[in-house]
């Protein structure tokens, strides 16, 4: 298969999934609302003291982002599995890994990117200074693709399995730990004046690793699920 063929197939999958997401807007919006609500609940549970809120803001936003992106994982392959599209993808002349990568990218575009763009607004609720908000967005932009990449492996493994929705969180959340630590740590160390570069580079390195192994592991998992 020629290189251009692979790239155009990749683009086609992304466009297809975005088109489907546009026709099923409620799914995308549910994830976003979930994120907003979870983040807004914390001040109610902890109290409105601004110093405290500022301190917990990075962690709260990141944990909420993990949960929100996980919430959308079961849908990643389930619909395509149910209507037979996944079988067709597995039998395509285009390598399945390419199609899977496209689906992961599309998943990030509809579930990760909006979270990153929404984060500054929520950060204001926690009285984060403007430059910290910038670091927050940057960290989420690097970190949320990791969530989609690792999450896809979990979604592939639990495809069509009893209680898959709950199971996927059990499998995937421990693997999210490095992203959480580097992501939230970036904002914290920026606020404390240490600079966020080290954290962000580590997060980017983790992203590179996840981008390398994630689609491969997801492909293997999907082939197993289709057997």
């Amino acid at each position, binding site marked *: 298969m020629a290189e251009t063929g692979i790239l155009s197939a990749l683009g086609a999958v992304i466009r297809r999934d975005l088109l489907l997401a546009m026709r099923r807007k409620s799914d995308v919006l549910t994830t976003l609302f979930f994120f907003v609500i979870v983040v807004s609940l914390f001040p109610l549970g902890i109290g409105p003291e601004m110093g405290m809120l500022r301190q917990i803001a990075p962690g709260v936003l990141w944990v909420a982002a993990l949960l929100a992106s996980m919430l959308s994982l079961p849908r990643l392959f389930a619909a395509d599995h149910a209507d037979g599209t996944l079988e067709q993808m597995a039998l395509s002349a285009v390598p399945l890994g390419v199609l899977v990568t496209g689906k992961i990218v599309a998943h990030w575009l509809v579930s990760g990117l909006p979270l990153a763009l929404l984060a500054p607004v929520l950060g204001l609720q926690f009285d984060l200074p403007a430059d910290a908000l910038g670091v927050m967005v940057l960290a989420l932009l690097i970190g949320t693709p990791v969530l989609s990449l690792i999450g896809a492996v979990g979604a592939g*493994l639990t495809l069509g399995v009893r209680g898959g929705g709950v199971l996927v969180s059990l499998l995937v959340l421990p693997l999210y730990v490095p992203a959480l630590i580097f992501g939230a740590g970036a904002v914290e160390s920026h606020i404390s004046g240490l600079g966020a570069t080290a954290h962000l580079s580590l997060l980017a390195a983790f992203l590179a690793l996840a981008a390398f192994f994630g689609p491969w592991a997801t492909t293997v998992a999907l082939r197993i699920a289709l057997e």
Partner: protein
Amino acid sequence: MSNGIINWFKFSSPQTFYPLAGKMIPWFWALTAIFGVAGLTIGFFVAPTDAQQGEGYRIIFVHVPASWMSMFIYLVMAFWAALGLGFNTRLSGMMASALAPTGALMAFLSLWTGALWGKPMWGTWWVWDARLTSELILFFLYLGFIALQSAIDDARRADKAGAVLALVGVINIPIIYFSVKWWNTLHQGASVSLTKSPSMAQTMLWGMLLMALAFWMYSIAVSLTRVRAIILERERHAGWVEELPELKS
């Protein structure tokens, strides 16, 4: 060369492995007992009282071996998983699922003894120390593996899905450990170091080593027992199972 390969495949068939494992299990139990008695004797009667930590330090004689085994078993599990995925050998998957509960037990023991050690030393049951936190995440990884395998009815699919998860986990564990350590130093949390106590005497090291060997033999013995059960459950329609002497009586 070709002869060796054939022998390996023969060895890796459940039919030949089942009686072989049965013969090996008593030996591993005997080794467990020998190493265990020797380790406990040194641990309680030979190793001197620690100058700083008093008698409480003796917990390391179970804590450290349990932590080592919990990590080591995950590696072995991932090794069998990779083998099963690559060569499609039935026994590898069974070995991986036989190891997981023992690994989870070791991780749990490591956490439990770590907490009991932390209370007298630091005045708190739990410290967010890099080792304990990584151990906790390792425990979650084991639970995930077991949960995934038990949620899938088809044994072959369960083996393969578990294998992918174990491999993803084994790539991730060093990163998790590193990130947790990094996080820990940044937050300057209390660092519990059981192994690096300065007054670590030679005898303590010997005691720990013997206990580690005992735990190792124990893990082999119990996982061989479990793999025999798994073989029987999975191969019940194979002809050889009906010929087993256990079933004749």
